[in-house]
């Protein structure tokens, strides 16, 4: 692709450091840079390394557009001080690194936990799980589970995963469950 031009906009030292610090290869980083700068208005493209992209722009990416966790993903990876979930290029790289193919299952499960933790309290309690199920079953009214089914489902999940029986799932319980899944690493993947 036409990536030759953008290569000159990331300083070489920085590029090699990004390679060192993320699971992405050089081409992937350059492609990420290209896609990121396309989300910016024309005037800001030159300094894409330092600009922040508002959340609404990030969500137009086809990779995130259809994802039910799009808002949570932006929130978790954003380092914005204003709480508007805007992302800088480094946040974007962080996100791509965690979702890349070569990322370890540990770091994926860590961030998956953060993403599923809707109220950001460090554990997955009933409310979080309910919201999670509603995200997964889609927006339509017919596809939602009835409250009885929801109760049963959450009961089953807690029975399986809540080892210390405190009614919530914390990070280590989550990682214990998810690391045994054969599908997790391959489904928790986004490639530009």
């Amino acid at each position, binding site marked *: 692709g036409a990536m030759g031009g953008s290569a000159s906009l990331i300083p070489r*030292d920085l590029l090699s450091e990004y390679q060192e610090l993320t*699971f992405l290869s*050089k081409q992937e980083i350059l492609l990420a840079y290209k896609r990121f700068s396309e989300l910016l208005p024309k005037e800001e493209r030159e300094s894409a390394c330092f600009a922040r992209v508002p959340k609404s722009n990030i969500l137009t990416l086809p990779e995130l557009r259809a994802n039910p966790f799009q808002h949570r993903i932006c929130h978790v990876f954003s380092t914005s001080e204003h709480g508007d979930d805007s992302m800088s290029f480094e946040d974007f790289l962080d996100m791509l690194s965690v979702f890349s193919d070569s990322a*370890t299952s540990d770091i994926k499960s860590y961030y998956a936990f953060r993403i599923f933790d809707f109220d950001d309290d460090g*554990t997955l309690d009933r409310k979080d799980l309910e919201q999670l199920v509603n995200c997964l079953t889609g927006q339509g009214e017919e596809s939602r589970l009835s409250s009885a089914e929801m109760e049963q*489902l959450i009961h089953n999940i807690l029975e399986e995963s809540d080892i210390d029986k405190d009614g919530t799932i*914390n990070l280590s319980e989550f990682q214990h469950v998810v690391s*045994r899944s054969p599908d997790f690493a*391959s489904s928790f993947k986004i490639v530009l």
Partner: protein
Amino acid sequence: DGSDDNEEGSAVENEETVKGTGRKRATPRTRRGHARGRDRHGDEEDEDDEDESRRAGHRRHRNRRRGRAAGNEASDSDMEPAKARKNQANQKSKEDDEEEEDEKGGKSGKDKNEKKVDKKADKKGKKEKANKKKKDKKKSGSGSDSESEEEPITEEELAKLKEEVEEKKKLIATLRNKPWKMKKKLSVLKEAQLFVEKFEGALGKGKGKKFYAYKVMMTKKWMKFQRDFENFKTACIPWEMKIKEIESHFGSSVASYFIFLRWMYGINMILFGLTFGLVMVPEALMGKPYGSLPRKTVPRAEEATAMNFATLWDFSGFAQYSVLFYGYYNNQRTIGWLKFRMPLSYFLVGVGSIGYSFMIVTRTMAKNANDDGGGDDTSFNFSWKMFTSWDYLIGNPETADNKFASITTSFKEAIVEEQESRKEENIHLTRFLRVLANFLALCTLAGSGYLIFFVVRRSQQFALEGLENYGWWERNEVNTVMSLLGMFCPTLFDVISSLENYHPRIALRWQLGRIFALFLGNLYTFIIALMDEINLKARYLLSFTMFDIYLGNVRTSKEKIVKYNMTIWEASLYNGTIPENSTAPPIQVDPADVPRGPCWETMVGQEFVRLTVSDMMTTYITILIGDFLRAVFVRFFNYCWCWDLEYGFPSYSEFDISGNVLGLIFNQGMIWMGSFYAPCLPAINVFRLHTSMYLQCWAVMCCNVPQERVFKASRSNNFYMAMLLFILFLSTLPAVYTIVSIPPSFDCGPFSGKTRMYEVISETLEHDFPSWFGKVFGYASNPGLILPFILLMVLSLYYLNATSKSYKEANLELKKKLQ
């Protein structure tokens, strides 16, 4: 001002990480590398220290902004008075450094870091001092000032220093595994890199300095090379964009087929490289040219039709008498001015292809087995559905809707199933239905086997009566029937399996198993019928001469006859006398006229090539008709049809993953079986996979819809690999058997004239290696040595199996303890 911004930034960042890791100190923290000296504190040092320091004075904030390495914070927080003073002095000097940079820098920490990089050389002097003092703080207890560059470094300190440098290097290598934000990672990285750079130089002092520096430089260069090579390898992977598009439309299970296809393509490229480069090209360039030997010339009788397209498509005529098939190769020990050992190369390429295929399939299986984790299937059923069912690769809203629907269905089903799992109604009916289904499946398999046998026999009849009397169908009956069976029987199995009422995953396994049995049965029936045909042809010829017709002696007897005929024919050239000690010059005969011996290897090779080609044609036509025309029909005739074609019958087709994967596996089996006899097979297969990739990618995007039941058959990955391995084993059995037990044809091929094909090895050892080598080889191939070796391997297999079992048990015990 800038520093304030950064304070907040890092404060927010750290709060997030605190929350994210939860109340319990979980694994990410424990993995942070620490220097060994600091085992006074637990692994929570890092976060605690950072929190504390934030609440501490402004001065420390300025230092935190750079996020200095763990050691720094630790020593700061547990300051002893002596150290405290030193630290303050250090901090002051560092502040001076940073203030300078602050003024020159911009707002974000990013800028500062960049400028730090740019000015690294300039600041090196100051930084060295700062780093030296930092190193002091790291050493727990040994707060001596002896680390200045001019003073000698003792052995003990050298060792400690080395340790710390190694720790830093490990930190750098694992930095990407840490769940930190990029800013923090960058600063930690830079710091660690500076430390390593500075002290690798210092470590070089003393004994072995030059060697150490050289070693360090080579390691750096090697790592850089490795990284560049990884980048290059990723760039070389073909079809990445295509597969990504399919992934986003259809999810990862459909894409897994294309990934499998691409992997097969890679294997076939290597096999092609071997056969093309080491067998076909040398013979073409350096062997005797076409027309110089009888085996290399089209016989006079066939010359007229040799160039027809029909003959070439059938791989006879000129195609048969070329480097594409076994029969063309001459049995000269060396050819050309390079003294290229052609028969040896042919043999080694054949054996090497098999060996390489085994190695790579086993390696991939082992890798997949590692990834699987080996947990049991049902212990986290609901949790997995909840946490791992969404496929993040989906980028298409329609696919996403399908996925939502399938997730909902799967939740509801799982809930219902779990409630009903106590009820056991009507076991007997279910059992009866399942037995009935298996019986029907067996009948289908037997029927298809018999059909193939019957058809091959018929084709023998046709051959005997001369193929010219029959049309296209009779000529290609066998191949067409086999391909059609491969197309319709799986659908039949699908219908049968609806009787069985299994869980979809189990039903898929049964389906795959039955299709596997079908293809296997077909292939082996085909081979048996082929062998039978070869023997039958020979028998037919012999029936006129009333020789002994034991199956084992058939071919050799046939060859004797032909040899006898040839000597008689030669004699006829000398006007009736059979010269015993002839001194007359041999009469020049055109090679086209010389009578030929039978060449069963080429025949077998031809059959495989024809089978591959017809299979390829069938697949393409099925795609075009079954998918494309159907889609066109549904799309355009929907307007003028009574019922809604798109939702009812026939609607758009779904991509049949398992059928396609099995087809791919079995075709590869045929390639493996036939490539010893027809070196052109890998080339044909490469072409075939290449066009398949493009055709199927286009067909999938254009004519198929995402599957309704999107459930992951990811465990099947290793199942497919296991099947591939099994097929590989079965396919190489015939080739290995022929190499070891059957005498090669006397009149064609690189092994003609030998009693067994593997004799080429002993011949090479005799001529090309020094005599002691041959002796060693002779000793090594002594059964007395080989049997104990096999025994040793069996014992080590048993041992490894036992240890793996004990690990699994220990795993289960730990799991239980956790609960």
